[in-house]
């Protein structure tokens, strides 16, 4: 059923893909930077500090998306007894963690001119910090548990516990009184953000998604070579 994910077949693609993804990322990222830093307008209330949104929001979106994917892949790996799903999940995690850190740090930098503080124990910030901890525990678990069966079980449990936090992050601004404003972009209803700001935001999101794909491919190839290295020992 999942023969398409077989390392022998997929490596033919994943070994060649990074250079193309890299070129595409550089192009999209440069356009995004120009749009975000020069062409997009300043906000009537926040002035130029609004430009931080173009790195902060995509980083937060991607880190949430990656964690959700890791959970889905870990559960699928467990249900279908397919280790490749775990390998894909493991390869996605470093990019997700770094995007989580970027979201926290750029959010803190944005907080100073906007709220007058670098940090507040606001529901959205705290839940994002908890997500970063889940990422960290997940990555450490892969390093410290040698036994394969154990590590698959433990990492799946970590992701299942961590995914509970994802809807909390998403709805924290609606459920509690937080410093964060409610969502400006809605898929199902009309967004309150102007096109002149939405365009650079979407371009930067595409660039960030391409970067996470690039890191994923490089990490996935590394993991496959690791397995093959062990295979050579057994010959």
């Amino acid at each position, binding site marked *: 059923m999942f023969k398409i994910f077989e*390392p*022998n077949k997929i*490596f033919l693609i994943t070994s060649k893909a990074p250079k193309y993804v890299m070129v595409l990322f550089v192009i999209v990222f440069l356009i995004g930077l120009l749009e975000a830093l020069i062409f997009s307008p300043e906000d009537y209330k926040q*002035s130029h*500090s609004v*430009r931080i949104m173009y790195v902060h929001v995509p980083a937060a979106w991607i880190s949430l998306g990656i964690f959700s994917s890791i959970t889905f892949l870990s559960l699928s790996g467990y249900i279908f007894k397919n280790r490749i799903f775990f390998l894909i999940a493991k390869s996605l995690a470093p990019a997700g963690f770094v995007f989580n850190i970027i979201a926290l740090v750029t959010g803190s930098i944005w907080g100073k001119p906007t709220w007058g503080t670098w940090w507040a124990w606001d529901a959205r910030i705290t839940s994002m910090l908890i997500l970063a901890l889940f990422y960290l525990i997940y990555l450490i678990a892969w390093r410290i548990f040698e036994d394969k069966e154990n590590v698959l079980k433990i990492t799946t449990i970590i992701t299942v516990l961590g995914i509970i936090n994802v809807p909390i992050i998403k709805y924290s601004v609606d459920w509690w009184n937080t410093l964060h404003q409610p969502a400006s972009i809605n898929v199902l209803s009309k967004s309150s953000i102007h096109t002149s700001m939405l365009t650079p935001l979407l371009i930067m999101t595409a660039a960030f998604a391409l970067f996470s794909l690039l890191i994923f491919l490089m*990490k996935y*190839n590394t993991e496959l070579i690791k397995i093959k290295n062990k295979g*050579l020992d057994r*010959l």
Partner: protein
Amino acid sequence: MINDIFNMNGYGFYVWSAFLFTLLSFTSLYIITKVQYVKERDKFVLKFGALDSKRAEVAKLQTINKEILSSSQSI
């Protein structure tokens, strides 16, 4: 014009710090991932080179092994 871009009505420090931090994080993650890849690939090439001809033939039957050897400069 250039001053305006850097100063950004007094918000330049915050905006440029956020973008610089993002760029630094991207660069670090890319370098770390690449170093890990190159290390693992070099280990593979070394191990493969140490195999006797019979074992090397068996190993070469797997497409992925051939691909790893040929993609030494692909990333």
